[in-house]
């Protein structure tokens, strides 16, 4: 005890200095937003490191659970994949079963924003495992977005929660195509646009990806129609869609590579010329 007091007395100047320095920094940050922002940034840097450490530890102890869940997810995905390969949607025998040009890679989402009007995701894998721009990203129960840019170990994704992104979808039981657009508020609430209205649309109809964009393969379940309103003035339908899975609540994703994309691009180029 005596030792502690002696040490305290010996270093009283340094201690006093540090305390007063802390007070002045507090004062500084209260007075100026700029300094507050800067100090918060350094604070975040520190606390981020600490949180990362603890999250690493808890991740480690959750590994078994995570692995189990992952393998479960993988198996359902594989099942879906196989199902989509032999999808009964191809009623006529125009496309022969057996060739399915899409490949799947498992990735982890490390940042998922959903509060803005134009949201982005960041994945923990990049060009090293073969992710390239314009690949599709799906979760175990629905779609997530399209790869925008790629670095060696990370890639950024335009989320489906992005007002400018339109996704080609169709009804599961009828071949009526439309575009899925986010409404901008609730991450599960979308609206269906550009749909050809010769077909009757009912609440509860399931929507799947349309396979026309060459990003997403045909037949990934996306969501179901939650509301159909006829607006009396112009005769158009207002169709609301609810996703099966909230895209903001996803931790793992699958990147889908269309191996035919170069071929398709060449073809499109040839058509436009």
């Amino acid at each position, binding site marked *: 005890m005596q030792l502690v007091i002696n040490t305290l007395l010996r270093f009283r100047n340094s201690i006093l200095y540090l305390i007063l320095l802390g007070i*002045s920094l507090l004062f500084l940050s209260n007075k100026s937003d700029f300094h507050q922002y800067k100090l918060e940034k350094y604070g975040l840097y520190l606390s981020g490191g600490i949180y990362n450490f603890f999250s690493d530890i808890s991740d480690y102890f959750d590994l078994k659970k995570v692995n189990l869940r992952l393998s479960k997810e993988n198996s359902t995905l594989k099942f879906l994949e196989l199902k989509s390969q032999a999808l009964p949607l191809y009623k006529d025998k125009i496309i022969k079963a057996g060739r399915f040009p899409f490949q799947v890679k498992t990735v982890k989402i490390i940042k998922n924003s959903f509060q803005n009007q134009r949201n982005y995701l960041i994945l923990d894998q990049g060009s090293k495992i073969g992710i390239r721009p314009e690949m599709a990203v799906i979760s175990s129960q629905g779609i997530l977005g399209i790869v925008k840019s790629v670095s060696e170990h990370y890639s950024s994704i335009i989320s489906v929660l992005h007002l400018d992104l339109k996704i080609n979808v169709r009804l599961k039981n009828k071949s009526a195509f439309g575009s899925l657009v986010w409404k901008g508020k609730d991450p599960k609430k979308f609206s269906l646009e550009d749909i050809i209205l010769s077909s009757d649309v009912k609440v509860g109809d399931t929507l799947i990806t349309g396979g026309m964009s060459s990003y997403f393969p045909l037949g990934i379940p996306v969501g179901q129609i939650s509301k159909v309103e006829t607006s009396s003035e112009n005769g158009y339908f207002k169709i609301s869609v609810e996703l099966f899975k909230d895209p903001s609540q996803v931790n793992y994703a699958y990147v889908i590579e269309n191996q035919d994309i170069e071929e398709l691009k060449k073809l499109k180029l040839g058509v436009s010329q």
Partner: protein
Amino acid sequence: MNSYILKTVVFFLSLVVLQVFIFNHINFLGGINPMLYLLFLINFRFDQDQTFFILLGFLLGFSIDLLSQTGGAHTIAALSISFLRPFIIRYSFGVIAETPKSFQSSPKTLNRLVFLFFTISIHHLIYFIFVYFSWDALSLILKNTFLSSIFSLILVILINSLYRTKQ
């Protein structure tokens, strides 16, 4: 001793007032302001208790920050310099601080200059670092430190020599 305390208090207050209302508005060559409140931290007796001195330095910077509506840069700079003063003294005079106060009246000129130079430039450097608070402004910080330090140094030397001749 009592007259010394009174003198110190008057010196302190007048420096705060002068700094806030006059020296902060000189804007020489577009924006260089001398920081003459450093006179207090420079001329404070070397043989006093340092804990007390740190508190005074904090108070000095704090009152200037409060009155001139600036952030906490003056406080941090003045506080740091009052904390660092024994080291600067030791470095520039080559002796420990607890020498008799008669020492102050007849120091070697070069030693005294070194002491002034270090005190002022370190203070200004800390001050401008906290004003800009960004590594991108490093060149601006160094430039401002350099120019303002020269300005302050000249004024401090002038005022100190005047003060001494009066005595």
